[in-house]
């Protein structure tokens, strides 16, 4: 099996599996319990928190959630509610993941003024373009660090500084699901997911900078300072932290995979690369269109050969997403788009196999 759909999810690494099993065996106490079993779990939780914050290069609070969808919902609804008296404007982009985009739809219904900007309108200076839209009334700016379909990078450390310079009271949120552990990310709030970096599904986190207020989404026992009630799943959290420690800090080998595949694709006819090149494109994602071959046909053809890729964002289950358009990808190209996404577990032979299969597929299906 050649798994090249790592932006959809990843295979849990051994370190994460071991950490989860050990936690389940030895530290199953409830973090809130007053007795020693609770204390043991609490220590595990604090260590995991410290590990993730260190990788993030941030000093603030970290709330564990059920995944990035919850993190994004908590960030957006939480800020919109907590700062509703300060203003009503929320700025975001037209390329966000549905967990941000649909939340913004709801906020729009709740009479927030939601502005969505397209990267295609300012592909080279998108950060300045977004920051320019910030006004006195802006309470929240939400922008993904790396687009999950195309791999377009927004320089969030830069955007963060620009937004704060324009309006120091505006809160900046970044959905860093595809960027965490891979590129520097920054924000007052940062959403993360464990299963994109070889942790488990059902596990994520939201970083919140000091001094930022957040209304909870759920009410209950007041765990995690009342921001996210519910007994903390120490097994999943231990696995998350182990996966973070295990994820390499140096990603030149993934860059090599990406460059090699780009090279092979340039030798084939009728291929359009949809991912940005240079500093704008993340090394872990390569999205391209094969002229004349519909995505789904190629995807299933590759699958027969034991190669797993995506036709776009796997979350949307084949539904055509509006995101490629936000990057100026034509409808025709979007219809034949293939997303290959790498992880440290991939090797150059995987690329060889994929290239061969793509050539065969093009020969067979192109009309």
């Amino acid at each position, binding site marked *: 099996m050649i798994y090249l759909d790592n932006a959809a999810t990843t295979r849990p690494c051994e370190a994460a599996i071991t950490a989860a099993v050990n936690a389940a065996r030895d530290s199953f106490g409830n973090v809130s319990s*007053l007795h*020693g079993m609770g*204390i043991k779990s609490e220590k595990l939780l604090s260590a995991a928190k*410290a590990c993730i914050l260190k990788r993030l*290069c941030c000093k603030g609070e970290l709330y564990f959630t059920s995944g990035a969808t919850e993190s994004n919902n908590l960030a957006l609804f939480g800020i919109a509610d907590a700062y509703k008296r300060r203003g009503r404007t929320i700025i975001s982009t037209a390329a966000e993941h549905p967990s941000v985009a649909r939340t913004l739809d709801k906020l729009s219904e709740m009479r927030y003024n939601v502005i969505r900007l397209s990267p295609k309108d300012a592909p080279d200076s998108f950060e300045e373009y977004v920051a320019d839209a910030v006004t006195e009334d802006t309470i929240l700016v939400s922008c993904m660090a790396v687009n999950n379909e195309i791999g377009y990078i927004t320089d969030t450390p*830069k955007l963060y*500084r*620009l937004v704060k*310079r324009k309006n120091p009271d505006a809160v900046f949120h970044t959905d860093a699901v595809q960027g965490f552990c891979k590129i520097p990310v920054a924000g007052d709030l940062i959403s993360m997911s464990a299963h994109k970096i070889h942790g488990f599904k059902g596990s994520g986190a939201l970083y919140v900078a000091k001094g930022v207020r957040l209304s909870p989404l759920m009410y209950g026992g007041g765990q995690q300072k009342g921001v996210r009630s519910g007994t903390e799943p120490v097994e999943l959290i231990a696995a998350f932290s182990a996966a973070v420690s295990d994820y390499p800090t140096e990603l030149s080998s993934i860059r090599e995979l990406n460059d090699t595949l780009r090279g092979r694709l340039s030798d084939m006819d009728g291929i359009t690369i949809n991912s940005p090149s240079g500093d704008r494109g993340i090394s872990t994602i390569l999205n391209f269109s094969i002229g004349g071959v519909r995505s789904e046909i190629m995807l299933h053809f590759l699958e027969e050969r034991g190669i797993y890729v995506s036709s776009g964002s796997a979350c949307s289950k084949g539904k055509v997403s509006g995101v490629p358009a936000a990057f100026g990808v034509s409808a025709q190209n979007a219809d034949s788009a293939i997303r290959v996404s790498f992880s440290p577990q991939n090797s150059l032979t995987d690329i060889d196999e994929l290239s061969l299969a793509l050539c065969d597929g093009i020969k067979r299906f192109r009309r």
Partner: protein
Amino acid sequence: MKEIIMAKYGEIALKGLNKSTFEDILLKNIKRRLKPLGSFNYTRKQSTIYIEPCDDNIDMGEVKERLKTVFGLGAIQPSAVFQKDMDEVKAQCIPYLKDALDLARTFKVEAKRSDKSFPLKSPDIQLALGDAILDAYPNLKVDVHDPEVTVKCEIRDIGAYVSAERIIGAGGIPVGSSGKALLLLSGGIDSPVAAYMMAKRGLIVDGIHFQSPPYTSERALIKVQTLCEKLTPYCGDIRLHCVPFTEIQEALRDNCPEEFFTIIMRRLMMKIANIVAERDGYGALITGESMGQVASQTLKAIQCTDAASKLPVFRPVIGMDKKEITDIARKIDTFETSILPYEDCCTVFTPRHPKTRPVLSEIEEAESRFDFAPLIEKAVKETVLYKYRVGEEY
């Protein structure tokens, strides 16, 4: 080009003949804080310590963070070092200033020429450098009154220094220059703040904590330990003496009038702290008492507790109100830990109506009805010592 940090003295720059004693301690403290991050060269000149990283992989952001909590420093100024040659300074400072300037709108240049042999005068340096920056960064305008970024250029003995960032230091005098004292640490908001304030005046601060299991839980101890860890960036290494206090509190409950519980308990704590202090060479006690905050912190009550201590008792937050104290607690990041809701020894056996105006003779009479001496001796003997080393969380 090399980035160094100029760590500038706070008030010790004003010291007279004993200045070098303070300098030595300050330098030692800085070295200890930075050692885990890599190796550095240190040079002392003109009331400034020049900190030069020995390799390129050192995390300078973390260096700045750590220096911010070192008492004795007035300012921390990351700078690029150049030869004392204006053309070289102009050419090479442009890329160094990119982070600070490429997103800014306004700036000004401030020059200082302490080496008077340098051919250009300060205003000329300002002009030359300002021109070079304007050429390189067309996004900028000069604003001498309220600039977003102030670029400093100092022509000093050793070289020319250019910086765009000046971080306010922690102030005070170096920890260790005033001797050492013992802090009564309950786990509340006030005592860590008291520790911070006395460390700022040069005291080495260690803690003494009273534990009453099973009335108090292990979490109360962990809380105090966490507070010690959080204080180490400011206070340096901290030793924590944990005194088993259960038997004494039970004896107190069984033998003394209820309205005096708190006062007598505090007097007993003072007595134990005095014994530990005498044994280990502490010159004073520190508490987080604030006038009138609770029944045991009225003037009369403080008179009664003070009478139980031979050593001077410092109460740095005595004149501060809760808001002022919590502001500092938030700044030093102890607040969130302090408000964790665990029972501590002070809340065990709290009287329903504590005496707010106790009379010392009455208290002494009530206390004398039971012989606490053997229990005190036993508690001191069974005291457990924990050590927290600065920067160990990294």
